[in-house]
């Protein structure tokens, strides 16, 4: 079944209460602002931070994140600058890199994913999420992650059936990314029934379940954690804040403050949801 976390930091992030896992694209809209934004997430209570390394063909992303990836690429982001960024960050949260397989495969000398993972480990990255890498193609990356002590997070979709679920769960470690609904990333108003179904199917697996795709408010976070999630992953709602800053020419400080405030709201929502699970509810 699912392996325990390779990374102690990721293990700890989920050990005590619900984990708040925010995502931002590194280098969006530029290197220095982006650093201030990621540090704001940390101050807002992030337990794990997913750092997006932009790829030119992001087939799993919705338009919000795709535009952020384009802003970052236009500002000159590369894998090497990404690693330098991770090294310079002053944060407590565990860092996870989210990117596409071609960048991992091409990095460094020689073939295969090992050089990327080695460099990521040196930069303090604790885990990887690779949305275009299914379990069937993942063994070389899994091996490299085990060698350098990184976790490899897989996404479970509402359409993932029993046999595929087993295959994924044999290879996942750290946490499993539960995709709340079909589609690509993007903030939505409702919380899908598909989330509850997915959490039910995953109940027997002993690995933390973090739910993502569409969470944008403290209320969403509360309901999802109350429904059994061990953590919430928030991407587009935060990227929207960055995009709004670009559009309205806001100062880096103001955008950072907004990100911190939204993070506090999301984290508090998750904690309310968690308490409602552990404490008896007045009127059920």
């Amino acid at each position, binding site marked *: 079944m699912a392996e325990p976390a390779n990374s102690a930091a990721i293990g700890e992030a989920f050990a005590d209460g619900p984990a708040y896992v925010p995502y931002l694209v590194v280098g969006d809209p530029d290197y220095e602002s982006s650093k201030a934004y990621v540090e704001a997430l940390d101050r807002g209570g992030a337990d794990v931070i997913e750092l997006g390394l932009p*790829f*030119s*063909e*992001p*087939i*799993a*992303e*919705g*338009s919000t994140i*795709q*535009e952020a990836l*384009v802003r970052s*690429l236009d500002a000159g982001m*590369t*894998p090497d600058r990404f690693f330098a960024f991770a090294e310079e960050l002053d944060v407590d949260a565990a860092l996870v890199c989210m990117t*596409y*397989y*071609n*960048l991992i*495969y*091409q*990095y460094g000398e020689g*073939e295969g994913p090992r050089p990327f993972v080695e460099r990521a480990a040196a930069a303090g990255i604790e885990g990887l999420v690779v*949305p*275009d*890498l*299914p379990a*069937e*193609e993942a063994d070389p990356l899994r091996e490299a992650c085990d060698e350098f002590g990184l976790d490899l997070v*897989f*996404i*479970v*979709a*509402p*359409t*993932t*059936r029993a046999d*595929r679920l087993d295959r*994924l769960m044999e290879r996942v470690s750290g946490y499993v990314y539960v*995709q709340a609904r*079909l*589609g*690509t990333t993007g903030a939505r108003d409702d919380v899908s029934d598909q989330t509850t179904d997915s959490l039910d199917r995953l109940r027997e697996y002993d690995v933390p379940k973090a739910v993502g795709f569409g969470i944008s408010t403290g209320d969403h976070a509360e309901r999802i954690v109350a429904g059994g999630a061990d953590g919430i992953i928030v991407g587009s709602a935060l990227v929207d804040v960055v995009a709004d800053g670009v559009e309205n020419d806001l100062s880096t400080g103001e955008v950072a403050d907004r990100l911190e405030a939204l993070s506090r709201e999301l984290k508090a929502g998750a904690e309310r949801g968690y308490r409602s699970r552990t404490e008896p509810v007045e009127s059920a």
Partner: protein
Amino acid sequence: MSETDTRTTKEMSRRPGRERGRDDGKFGQYGGQYVPEALMPAIEELADAYERYVLNNEDGFMDEFRERLADFGGRPTPLQRADRLSERYDTEVFLKREDLLHGGAHKLNNALGQVLLAKYMGKERIIAETGAGQHGTATAMAAAHLDMPCTIYMGERDINRQRPNVFRMKLNGSEVKPVTTGRGTLKEAISETMRDWAETVEDTHYVIGSIVGPHPFPVMVRDFQAVISEEAREQAIEKTGGLPTDVVACAGGGSNTMGTFADFVDDESVALHAVEAGGSTLQVDEEEGVAPNSASLYTGDEGVLHGARTKLLQDSDGQIMESHSISSGLDYAGVGPELAYLVDEGRVEPVAVDDDAALEGFHRLSNTEGIIPALETAHAFGFLEEHHEELGDRVVVNVSGRGDKDLDAAIEETDQRDVANAPDMSMFTEGI
């Protein structure tokens, strides 16, 4: 259909040259299924349907496909001797006339196959991407013919370059959605279509237009297109008493290429030439992320794009480059994994022909044989001019599409350079 006919159909789809990749989607290290988890169940379902309906002719799928290709599509297309070219190159040149297929290009073979398959699978909606608009128009025709609702994603820039094709799609009842991200061409349209599919997989089939993407698309599209080589091989033997010495096809994503090569791959005496778009130069601008060509077989490196491991135009970080070609149908940074494999094996010879030579080929076929080829196809005739001395005495060239869609572009491009064999069109191009 009698039992004998059904068996013949089945045997044809079981030809040895088409076994590669069928089981697991791998061609050596190439191929595979690099897609978001949400799409995996859909492509597994598709792989299952491919095996049942295409390989095993369940419910008479292949019989119906072939019947519709004949009645709606106009198959078989002729293999025609090109008299002037034969004389010019002192070798027998034969043209496989896919330009005469309904819609004016080979694209219908695949589009009709996939839309029909979607129907057999119980899907209710069709989506597709298109670059030049050829695959989009073929899909729109097939969807109208089979009464399926259809949405086509097309880059905004391509929409402006290919207006007549946009009109054709709309006339056939399809919705055309412009894609504004990135440079607004084929690769952005593919990403956008994958996004749609990720939300709608349960009732929607994505008709990929070439032998690219995750398994089973590369083998399935090849099998639908392989009717080209199946006919060409029989016609060549019938007309000349033997196999050709050389088979030539242009290569972008590679569907007409692999369709033309499929049944010849096991005929070791037959040389296979995949002609890529050399664009303006084979040099790349790493700084700008631009490859002014589309020669991924000839110059590309191994990588993962749009669901498959294959040869790609990419920078040293692995970011995909903007490709370029005078023909938007060849303008793609990747290529089918099976072609990447056959090139590594030495079975297929990749060669690049630049924009100028392609344009010259366009005019040569037009004014010597009375056939105006698509600019994509014109690359194959540029190859013939440059390499005819290296070829044997019996050459088959696939005329993958007709050039009506390219007239404006061809005249404009001709006007910008000195093409020796072009007619004087200056009276029409003033002010362009």
